[in-house]
């Protein structure tokens, strides 16, 4: 029977003691119970956020995520069609430009997000892991961007890679990270690093939902209660 808003709180009856003894400690069962204990559905996908989130500063994070979606949406056609397409046709050039501008916006909003959450002290309240995961996503993003520049296969890429290899060699990493190896750069850029970034960003978001949005320094005590729908 359909009920009104908030009248029927979701509860999951998942008591292993009700199962036969041999089924109480299965790997899947333990994983499921851990996940829903850590991320109850209402906390994973809440209906509302606290009132202090009512600021454009909090939009920078979701704009970074939107830029990331744009990067995947434009990058996948580029990876499928190849360099002849993005350098030799107007449609390919359009996707190439969209990919380029999505990167510009990604790092612009990432820095806006980074600076604003730093100034608002978003690392407080057991949110250190959330912070470190965000920094890891930033570092993966930087390497992804570098390998992207090395994958362009035009004269700009040639310039960047020949200059950049000296920098990489000076760190001692040149023995396996070779900017002049186009196939290595391209594979890192279209497979390894995007999947890594996706995973790190996903875990970052899970921890944001686990800990909730950090309250501002001057938040009133009455504003700090959890939202209805956020459990």
């Amino acid at each position, binding site marked *: 029977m359909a009920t009104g808003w*908030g009248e029927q709180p979701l509860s999951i009856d998942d008591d292993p003691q009700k199962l036969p003894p041999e089924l109480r400690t299965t790997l899947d069962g333990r994983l499921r119970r851990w996940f829903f204990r850590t991320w109850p559905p209402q906390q994973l996908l809440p209906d509302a956020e606290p009132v202090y989130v009512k600021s454009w500063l909090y939009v920078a994070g979701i704009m970074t995520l939107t830029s990331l979606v744009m990067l995947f949406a434009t990058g996948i056609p580029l990876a499928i069609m190849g360099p002849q397409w993005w350098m030799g046709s107007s449609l390919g050039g359009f996707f190439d430009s969209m990919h380029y501008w999505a990167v510009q916006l990604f790092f612009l909003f990432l820095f*806006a997000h980074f600076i604003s959450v730093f100034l608002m002290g978003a690392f407080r309240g057991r949110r250190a892991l959330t912070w470190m995961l965000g920094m890891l996503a930033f570092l993966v993003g930087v390497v992804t961007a570098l390998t992207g520049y090395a994958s362009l296969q035009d004269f700009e890429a040639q310039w960047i890679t020949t200059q950049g290899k000296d920098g990489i060699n000076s760190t001692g990493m040149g023995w396996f990270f070779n900017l002049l190896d186009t196939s290595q750069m391209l594979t890192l850029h279209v497979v390894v690093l995007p999947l890594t970034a996706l995973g790190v960003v996903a875990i970052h978001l899970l921890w944001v939902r686990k800990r909730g949005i950090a309250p501002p320094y001057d938040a009133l005590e009455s504003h700090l209660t959890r939202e209805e*729908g956020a459990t």
Partner: protein
Amino acid sequence: MPPPMPPCESTGLIDLCGVGAFLSRDWFTLQVSNLIWFLVLLALIALAIAIPFPTRTTDFTGYEQPAGEGDGDEAAPEATIGEPPAALVQES
């Protein structure tokens, strides 16, 4: 000083001289694009602080802010989508 460049010759499809022209710019000219980037970033943050966020249509939270507190948009008219649960309504 940039290294001496060979005579610039370009036959058409790709402007090889463009790469050489990049070297001839001085350091400060190269930083202009970086400066613009940081100015855009600062403007973005300043605007995000300055521009009030649109008020929610209905505040289900019960966290009504007292008059005079906040960024001044509390007086915006609120449409009614549904009645908030009694447990969430704060007595003022």
